[in-house]
């Protein structure tokens, strides 16, 4: 039924916007990685830095990475979705402009205003800095997040408009009607299914964010307006969890669209595929209580829900994607070019990273592992080795020459160096977690410092390989094609 509606001839304006997105994405990824390496180096005593600067850098790295992962995800979703429905270029650009304004506000809050309350701005910390930062600094940070949220909302509403215009309802775009009727339209694009899911969950998440951010602002200037801390935490983690999850669900579109180009097999929707995406739409929304397993005042049923859904939440989409990727490459004549390698690495990183996540989502384990470096261990696994390789695979693909056959050997080498160093870097986080090293500590005990030092070295190699990819990609920026 679904045919490509939009002309795929390159439009210079849209291409320019995409190039701006890509340049911003690459620059921020590299800078935030530098911040990450600096943190590991500080913990490893390679560099000396006052703890308040450490927490400022930690806030910068967290907010910057989450934000840029979102922006990169949007560029992938936009790139492919515009082939099926007609999106408004101006709103794609508006999102980037608001993002940059928000980033400037956040940078000001952190670097000038010394805000170091963590990217999660957990209530009541922004208002209780004990003199380290002013209310204005906290407000600039919170305001920056709000501005970024508005940008994303504009983009998602445009996606909603386009999907409703074509499919009539989001349920139909998600394929729910096909599940109910049992008649599966194998031509229904996986990109449309994934985009609809992201649109639904992120709009709800942004709404929760818009409420708690404004209440945090009110509390900053009217401290007598005291928010219930548990409600605040629920809303913040709901918003944060949904947003960072959605980055992967946007980026995975690159796997669905591009892997077939290297294997020669189309990626068709199936009944399990549609069922998985529908199920995950609901579960991503209700799984967030696994961040609150230590809050004994939470209702028990919510914590149990958090644990049970943690086992189920990511699994459906992950399974259909991993299975789909295996079907793609099994006995196929795969062209193992750089993009294909990154995409397969991404599926591995995502799948493998979910294992430590699920372990930690278990209440009895969480009582021990909560707030240890195990936690950054699992999320760096699926962000650094899952989300980021999806973005890199996408970028290397769309910037290749039309008939490129020669393989760039240096990028091929870079791929292996990136993969091995990132794995080692992540294992140091996980191992430190097993050794009960707490997360978010500027200073570590002497016994932990060797882990930090190894991690700093591995992190440095990851940073250098990313820098190398960035230089390569920026040099190819002019080759980018909208119909690649």
């Amino acid at each position: 039924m679904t045919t490509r509606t939009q002309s795929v001839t390159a439009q210079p304006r849209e291409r320019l916007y995409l190039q701006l997105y890509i340049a911003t994405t690459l620059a921020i990824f590299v800078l935030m990685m530098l911040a990450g390496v600096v943190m590991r180096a500080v913990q490893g005593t390679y560099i000396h830095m006052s703890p308040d600067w450490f927490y400022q850098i930690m806030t910068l790295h967290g907010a910057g990475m989450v934000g840029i992962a979102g922006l990169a995800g949007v560029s992938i979703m936009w790139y492919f979705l515009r082939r099926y429905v007609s999106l408004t270029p101006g709103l794609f650009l508006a999102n980037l402009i608001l993002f940059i304004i928000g980033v400037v506000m956040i940078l000001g809050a952190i670097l000038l205003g010394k805000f170091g309350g963590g990217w999660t701005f957990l209530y009541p910390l922004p208002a209780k800095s004990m003199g380290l930062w002013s209310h204005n600094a906290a407000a600039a940070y919170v305001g920056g997040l709000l501005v970024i949220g508005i940008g994303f909302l504009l983009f998602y509403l445009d996606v909603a408009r386009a999907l409703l215009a074509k499919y009539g309802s989001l349920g139909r775009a998600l394929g729910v009607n096909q599940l109910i009727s049992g008649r599966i339209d194998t031509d229904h694009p996986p990109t449309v299914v994934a985009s609809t899911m992201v649109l639904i969950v992120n709009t709800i998440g942004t709404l929760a964010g818009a409420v708690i951010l404004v209440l945090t602002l009110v509390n900053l200037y009217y401290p007598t307006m005291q928010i219930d801390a548990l409600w605040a935490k629920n809303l913040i983690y709901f918003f944060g969890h949904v947003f960072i999850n959605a980055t992967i669900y946007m980026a995975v579109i690159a796997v669905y669209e591009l892997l077939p180009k290297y294997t020669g097999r189309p990626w068709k929707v199936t009944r399990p595929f549609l069922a998985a995406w529908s199920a995950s739409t609901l579960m991503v929304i209700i799984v967030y209580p696994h961040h609150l397993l230590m809050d004994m005042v939470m209702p028990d049923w919510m914590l149990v829900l958090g644990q049970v859904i943690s086992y189920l939440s990511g699994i459906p989409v992950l399974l259909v994607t991993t299975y789909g990727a295996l079907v793609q490459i099994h006995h196929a004549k795969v062209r193992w070019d750089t993009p294909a390698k990154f995409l397969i690495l991404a599926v591995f990183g995502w799948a493998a990273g979910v294992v430590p996540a699920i372990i930690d989502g278990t209440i009895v384990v969480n009582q021990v592992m909560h707030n240890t470096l195990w936690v950054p261990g699992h999320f760096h696994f699926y962000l650094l080795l899952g989300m980021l390789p999806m973005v890199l695979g996408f970028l290397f693909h769309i910037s290749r020459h039309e008939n490129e056959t020669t393989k760039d050997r240096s990028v091929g080498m870079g791929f292996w160096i990136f993969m091995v160093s990132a794995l080692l870097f992540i294992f140091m986080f996980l191992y430190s977690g097993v050794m009960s090293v707490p997360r978010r500590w500027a200073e570590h005990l002497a016994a932990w410092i060797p882990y930090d030092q190894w991690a700093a070295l591995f992190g440095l190699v990851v940073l250098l390989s990313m820098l190398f990819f960035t230089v390569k990609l920026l040099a190819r920026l002019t080759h980018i094609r909208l119909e690649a």
Partner: protein
Amino acid sequence: MTDNFRQAMFVMLVPVIIISHHWLETSMTSHMAVQLPLLVFVGALFAGLLQTYSPRLVVFGQRYRISLLLYSLFTISLWMLPRLLDAALYQSSIAFLKWLSLPLAGISLVLCWRHLPFVLRGILHLELLATLLRLGWLYLIAPQRYCVSYGINDQQQLGHVLLGYAAVYGLFLASSVLLGGRRAN
């Protein structure tokens, strides 16, 4: 909504609002969460009727959509201030303004609505939802009362009601986009 239904609603609601005004103004909850929205709603119904009888109004709505939107947003936001509720009880000029400005806000909103782009309408829907949640929450936690005429219990009750409205409104929005019906363009 058919025109007949609109007419019937309008004819019924106007006397109901006028007759019940003393009673609705005895509590902050019914004043803010029932009377004010009803005034806007009556205006909206009226505009719907006007549009069918005078198609030129559609052109008017198209031409002045931004001014109409700004007027209605400004007026509705202004009436969210508890201070004005008090004033409307004690100053007849403010009371008069309430009875005039809110139905006008409803009229302007309906006149401009269909000429607004989908994305802007979406933002307005979501912002209204967020505002209900934020205000509801703030009224629940505010340590002092903001209207001299009403007690703090009343203010907190209003908070609960606004959160309830948000829940219903959220479900309505979710079901209309998930299940669909009308197409966006």
